[in-house]
């Protein structure tokens, strides 16, 4: 599948390029699930998620490190959804947990940008699929360079001020378990990305502000949010 416009993510390991398909796991960070409290048992949800809750960031959302991101007109603030992104290296179908990690090419930083929205009952396409709402990068770091993907610190800065610190040690489904559950019903292909989950509360920002996400060993992903593209 063709990549979105202007995406350049350096990748020195096979398959050497992203496929352009990006999935994310909703409520896969314990803090995000906890933030809902007892609402998970109330209508319209009725019970907490049983299977992994997934979504797609379509190709129009993909953006590179350093690209300006437009805050849509009429929307005051956006959420910065900092997540570890898994980059698939080998076709991955029906993986046992024990073999899941070896199917990865590596890792990168994903910023799953959203318009704040109050519900997760219906797919939130108008809130999550806007142009530029998925910066990725700055590069794919090889699997070998990261000892334990389930113990990485994520930091989010807005205009240089630290606004969120989270860790991948608090995933509801850790990396291998998530890969096993997802590939039970859908095959992931080389170059696909799976964002493992965003911690809560998510920092928000307005047009004119700059988001920077840092993850241990993965570098920093930085984007300025603007009212209009220059």
């Amino acid at each position, binding site marked *: 599948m*063709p990549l979105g416009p202007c995406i350049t993510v350096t990748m020195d390991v096979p398959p050497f390029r992203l496929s352009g*398909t990006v999935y994310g796991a*909703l409520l896969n960070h314990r803090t995000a699930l906890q933030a809902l409290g007892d609402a998970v048992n109330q209508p319209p949800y009725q019970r907490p998620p049983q*299977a992994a809750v*997934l979504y797609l960031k379509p190709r129009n959302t993909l953006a590179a490190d350093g690209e300006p991101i437009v805050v849509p007109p009429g929307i005051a603030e956006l959420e910065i959804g900092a997540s570890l992104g898994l980059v698939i290296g080998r076709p991955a179908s029906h993986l046992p947990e024990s073999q899941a990690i070896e199917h990865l090419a590596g890792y990168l930083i994903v910023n799953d940008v959203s318009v704040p929205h109050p519900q997760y009952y219906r797919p939130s*396409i108008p809130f999550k699929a806007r*142009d530029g709402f998925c910066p990725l990068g700055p590069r794919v770091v090889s699997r070998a360079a990261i000892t334990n993907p389930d113990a990485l610190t994520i930091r989010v800065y807005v205009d240089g001020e630290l606004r969120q610190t989270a860790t991948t040690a608090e995933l509801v489904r850790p990396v291998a378990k998530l890969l096993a559950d997802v590939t039970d019903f859908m095959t992931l292909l080389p170059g696909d990305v799976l964002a493992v989950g965003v911690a809560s509360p998510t920092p928000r920002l307005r047009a004119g502000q700059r988001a920077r996400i840092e993850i241990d060993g993965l570098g920093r992903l930085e984007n300025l949010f603007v009212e209009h593209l220059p």
Partner: protein
Amino acid sequence: MRLARVACAGAIHAAQPQLLADGRAGVRLTDGRTLAEEDVVWLPPLEVGTIIALGLNYAKRARELAFTTPEEPLVFLKGPGTLLGHRGVTRRPAGVKLMHYECELAVVIGRSARAVRRSDAMDHVAGYCIANDYAIRDYLENWYRPNLRVKNRDGATVLGPWLVDAADVPDPGNLGLRTYVNGKLTQEGNTRDMISDIPALLEYLSSFMTLTTGDVILTGTPEGAVNVGVGDEVVCEIEGLGRLQNTIAGDALFGR
């Protein structure tokens, strides 16, 4: 023009449907070879970009599922791995109680669309195909419903058999849809009963996201989606577009 993509004789080919000399259905490859339809592997007819699907876009179907008509279109996305060509095989996992087909008109974007008006929307359409958007309702949960485990399974979105040029479909807003299971008519509807018609969908979607050449919109299914089982042959038919065939298979074929 009707353009298919098929694999045979060591390559992927563009092909057009053509009756063989003996009256059987066949295809003519661009290089001039003609083959029977069962002698090629049918692929989804184009390299698909973003796959956008509609839920509850036919009023009677929404009532069948006990939903009121949604206030704005119910949109969800699908990944490329769920696509399957004509005459393919879709897995029904053991133990599930309700797996049903959904015959849908698929709209293929030809020209990028950003904030298009209803009146200009159809200029952005390249053509149409038939989609069969399977769902396994056992896996429904109330989180981003319909969730991907229901609607984004490997090989559970059949697309084809070919892409029909928009110019050859004068009124996509008035096409009969029919599904046959093992030859028996089980679903019947018409695209005129869509709640959001194609121009409305293009206006709505392009108001918040840029649609690009090769993106596909699955416009929803009318009432009459029923359970299908292992071994069933499911044919989705849309007036003027053709017949899209698919077979349901059990776990054993997939090594499960």
